[in-house]
């Protein structure tokens, strides 16, 4: 049985039980080395220079774009705009995409899929959830019927509860009502084999740092004809074909959306993360992750006074819970002092928390390197934390 932890230097240096991969994942050796090598051996700016180093950096950057396109089965690297991450991808859409007034979102969205639409003065319509916190399709269709030609923007996997949305069904329904679809893949990229052509989504966003890549880099996938119609997001160098004091013309997508010097080392590091993912048997990864998730869920369910908010069939990546009459922050702090990293609070999903009447939850989330031993150590520490808190309650 392969121990994925061996691929990550972090676990050589730390005994921490890291259960916060939905916030950011650890990075494989190859990613760290690729970024370091870029600065040590061939640091140069891309696209503009004529010298060998610049050409070499440009080739690596564009090769990474092609690799990203393959990773989500996009038709071409022209569909891939590099961004800082999902948040910037959605802000780009909110700023640059026109022709719609309303955005249909789900009740479980991250703030990054709410606030950009408010900033661009869009009407927001919210799909209701069923008792397992899955999308209520009757509510969804009603909104589509009432708001045709809107933009649907929904997370692929809830960052709070781990519910996996059926992106293909969401997209097919939306298209029937003339709506465009964006899927936020922040939590999905590491846990689902994304195929944007099969899903037929119009836009898809990813953050590299949640898929074993560096922070500060991500992508917006878009159908090319839509990217062509969109206005540039930011102006500056590297995105123009001509500039005069009177007016400017822009390059074709994706370059017209990449003004200024990009996160070159981040993109090159991300390419290594994708190569790492490609080197694995993805079916085995999925099986391993499902096993660890089920084990954690089963272990938690054995605890007295546990509150788990969904019993949905398709859960991945993140698992939220509370212990009755104890504050999530107290549990999180005591876990931390026992070497267990979890996330506590509202998880950047305040509307979802308010809807469920919660101040917050304790969230554990998994990466490829998470294993049953992590879960066992977490459970021991959790039981000890509860015991301490109950003693003084």
């Amino acid at each position, binding site marked *: 049985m392969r121990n994925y932890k061996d691929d990550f230097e972090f676990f050589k240096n730390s005994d921490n039980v890291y259960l916060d991969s939905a916030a950011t994942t650890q990075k494989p050796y190859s990613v760290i080395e690729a970024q370091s090598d870029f600065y040590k051996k061939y640091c140069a700016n891309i696209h503009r220079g004529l010298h060998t180093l610049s050409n070499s950096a440009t080739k690596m950057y564009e090769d990474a774009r092609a690799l990203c396109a393959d990773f989500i089965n996009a038709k071409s690297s022209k569909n891939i705009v590099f961004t800082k991450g999902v948040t910037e991808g959605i802000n780009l859409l909110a700023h640059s995409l026109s022709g719609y007034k309303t955005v249909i979102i789900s009740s479980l969205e991250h703030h990054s899929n709410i606030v950009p639409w408010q900033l661009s003065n869009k009407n927001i319509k919210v799909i209701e959830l069923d008792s397992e916190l899955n999308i209520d399709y009757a509510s969804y269709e009603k909104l589509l019927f009432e708001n045709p030609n809107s933009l649907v923007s929904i997370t692929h996997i809830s960052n709070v509860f781990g519910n996996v949305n059926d992106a293909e069904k969401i997209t097919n329904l939306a298209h029937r009502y003339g709506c465009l679809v964006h899927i936020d893949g922040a939590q999905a990229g590491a846990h689902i084999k994304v195929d944007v052509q099969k899903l037929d989504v119009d836009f898809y966003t990813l953050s590299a740092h949640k898929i074993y890549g560096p922070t500060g880099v991500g992508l917006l996938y878009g159908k090319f004809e839509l990217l062509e119609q969109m206005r540039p997001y930011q102006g500056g160098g590297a995105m123009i074909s001509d500039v005069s004091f009177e007016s400017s013309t822009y390059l074709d997508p994706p370059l017209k959306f990449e003004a200024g010097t990009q996160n070159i080392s981040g993109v090159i590091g991300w390419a290594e993360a994708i190569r790492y993912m490609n080197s694995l048997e993805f079916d085995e990864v999925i099986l391993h992750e499902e096993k660890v998730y089920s084990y954690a869920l089963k272990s938690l369910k054995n605890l007295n006074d546990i509150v788990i908010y969904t019993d949905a069939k398709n859960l991945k990546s993140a698992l939220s819970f509370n212990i009755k009459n*104890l*504050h999530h*922050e*107290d549990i999180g*702090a*005591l876990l931390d*002092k*026992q070497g267990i990293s979890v996330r506590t*609070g509202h998880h950047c999903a305040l509307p979802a928390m308010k809807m469920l009447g919660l*101040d917050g939850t304790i969230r554990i989330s998994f990466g490829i390197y998470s294993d049953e031993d992590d879960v066992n150590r977490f459970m021991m520490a959790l039981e000890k934390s509860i015991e*301490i*808190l109950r003693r*003084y*309650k």
Partner: protein
Amino acid sequence: MITENLKAIVDELSLFDDALEKYEYIIELGSLNADFEDSYKSDKYLVKGCSSSVWLYCTEVENKLFFHSDSNAMIAKGLASIICKVYSGSSSKEILDSDVKLLENLNLSEIITPVRQNGVASMQRYILKFAKDFEDGC
């Protein structure tokens, strides 16, 4: 009075080498603090800037101020108890004349996160405001 109160808590906290034991002591301090009247659990007495809900109010006996706190989280309640303990029993002038950096002696930065440190700073600001209002006759 403030210095003595502070020293007593610093001495007690220094008895624990282990961070978990230190937390347990903080939680225990909070659990022993039962002088909070529930009628003060309102927005007026809610300390803004804490990640959990902390309420804090002040009473006066013979020109000495006494601070009372509660929280919906046990560690926050313990931390609030510590801060109240440091300042309680002093006059408003003593509180206002005290060094605002004196809480650094608790070395809380070693055991609590920056978010919680901000919460502690907010509690201290509320206490100083109570003292100032009392001094001004508000």
